[in-house]
């Protein structure tokens, strides 16, 4: 177990020292939250600005999630996987460690944005923060599970830019990031319910803005996170074991 724990620590350290990813993200989030706090507040009022910031907190993990999921999939097909497999660590634990480290990075990204949101616009209590954290953790697992499952279909790494833009675009615009579910027409709602961001954002908005505990969203999110993490693990495990093919 010691070797497994050490490998997971290595994965986490690798994930959190990707400054080329983290630094632009931090600057981006800082600018976004600053603009939302005064610009949208003036144009559309504080309620919309707060709603938008919560949407943005949920969405914040997407860019990092997409890139880290693709990176982890690529890692599982390169020389690195051979080294990890030679270590006294079970193959399934290697894949789980990679999924957890990517999820942790995603969750940290959203927490950073949550911190900025709290600083500029939101007033979230401590008990609410804990539930927000739970929702973000579940969303992080769901997102990484979904993205890792999709990313194994990437055959040509040179097309990564196109794929990243496409996935981010779909998750961003076919979602409740900018608007609440109620304003969408019924056919579009069905699509938006497929977006893994929907449930955490809906849950956090209800909790923070209406002090309402949306059990349904949280339960769906919990179910999705277990299911997608399982699917992602299964697909990646297969890939890791058969990397030589």
């Amino acid at each position, binding site marked *: 177990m010691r070797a497994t724990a050490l490998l997971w620590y290595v994965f986490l350290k690798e994930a959190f020292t990707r400054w080329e990813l983290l630094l632009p993200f931090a600057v981006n989030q800082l600018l976004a939250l600053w603009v939302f706090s005064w610009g949208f507040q003036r144009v559309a009022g504080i309620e919309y600005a707060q709603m938008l910031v919560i949407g943005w907190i949920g969405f914040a993990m997407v860019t990092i999630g997409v890139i880290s999921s693709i990176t982890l999939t690529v890692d599982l097909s390169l020389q690195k996987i051979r080294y990890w497999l*030679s*270590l006294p660590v079970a193959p399934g634990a290697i894949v789980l460690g990679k999924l957890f480290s990517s999820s942790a990075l995603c969750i940290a990204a959203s927490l950073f944005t949550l911190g900025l949101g709290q600083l500029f616009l939101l007033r979230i209590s401590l008990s609410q923060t804990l539930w927000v954290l739970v929702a973000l953790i579940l969303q992080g697992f769901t997102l990484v599970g979904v993205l890792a499952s999709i990313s194994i279909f990437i055959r040509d790494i040179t097309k990564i830019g196109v794929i990243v833009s496409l996935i981010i675009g779909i998750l961003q615009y076919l979602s409740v990031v900018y608007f609440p579910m109620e304003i969408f027409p019924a056919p579009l709602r069905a699509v938006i319910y497929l977006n893994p961001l929907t449930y955490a954002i809906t849950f956090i908005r209800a909790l923070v803005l209406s002090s309402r505990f949306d059990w349904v969203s949280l339960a769906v999110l919990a179910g999705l996170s277990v299911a997608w993490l399982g699917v992602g693990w299964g697909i990646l495990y297969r890939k890791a074991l058969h990397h030589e*093919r």
Partner: protein
Amino acid sequence: MAKRAALEVQAVSKSLHAKTIVQDVTLAVEAGEVVFLSGPNGSGKSTLVYLISGVYQLDQGDVWINGISLTREPRRAKALVTTVFQETLFDPVSSPLHALSLHARFYGARWSHKQICAILKEFGITEPNRSIFQLSGGTKKKVELLKARLVETPVYIFDEPFAGLDEQSRQQAEELIRERKRQGRAVLLISHEPGRFDWVDRRVYMEAGRIMPTPAAKEASPMLVEAVVQGWKEELRSQLEGQHGLQLLEVHSIEPSDQEIEDILKSLGLDKLGARVQVLRADSAAAQEILKHLGGTAQTVSVPQRSMLRTRLKLSAEISLAQLTQLLEGQGLKVLEIRRL
């Protein structure tokens, strides 16, 4: 239940891309034993190494390391084997110091950075913090090799541990393997490099993915080779002998035949010669000078000595013909013919 060997490979098979690479391989290495696995390129040796070390999944069979099944308990089994791969699998952007320090910790070994730096220095690696991808091939090999120095396990696998190493490092590598043998560890050694390897206990030969019992003896015993070379000098004898188990059994000069001399002269434009042709000991440039002055009527001419004199060597060698040719050419000899007797 019968006591198992330290390393036991049982009826292992592996196919890649619908091609069988390793087929029904069974092999055992006892504690304190060094087994030398040889075979031609593509015979499946490195795939077997990947299978034993858990990098590749077994299609069939099982590997037992100190009685622990690799398929049933991969984590425990892998903790008992140290594999020095043919090419290092360390992260190329990592440094030797960081990679080895971390690697040792995976096996529960604790080495301070200072200690690792000292060991690296002992093996001639003076830049412990440089990225592995920036190192030369030989240095990368040494970094990989040092896994076996830092980690204590009952089984060691060395896949081509001497490839790309200079003589001193090679000796250090050999000493490291011998040391592990002395400590009672089981060692599986795979190598193409020539050498006597007196300390090897058993030799196994692999071909086309299978263990071939018969050619093993052939491979192990030195082969007799006849080589015809140009440019032989007596002082080369001492330089060649003993190198990679080489023994020079006979050295014969081959005098050029009249026909060969005539052919040379004809190639120089002297096609109407008398019967008597004398070969002078003069170098090629001097011969050309003489020919220039004497013209086509001369009966006594000089021919380029080095292009005419050949030497037949009879050798005993433990290396392949290709490696022997390379070795002779490395000494400045031109190899005209080489064959196994």
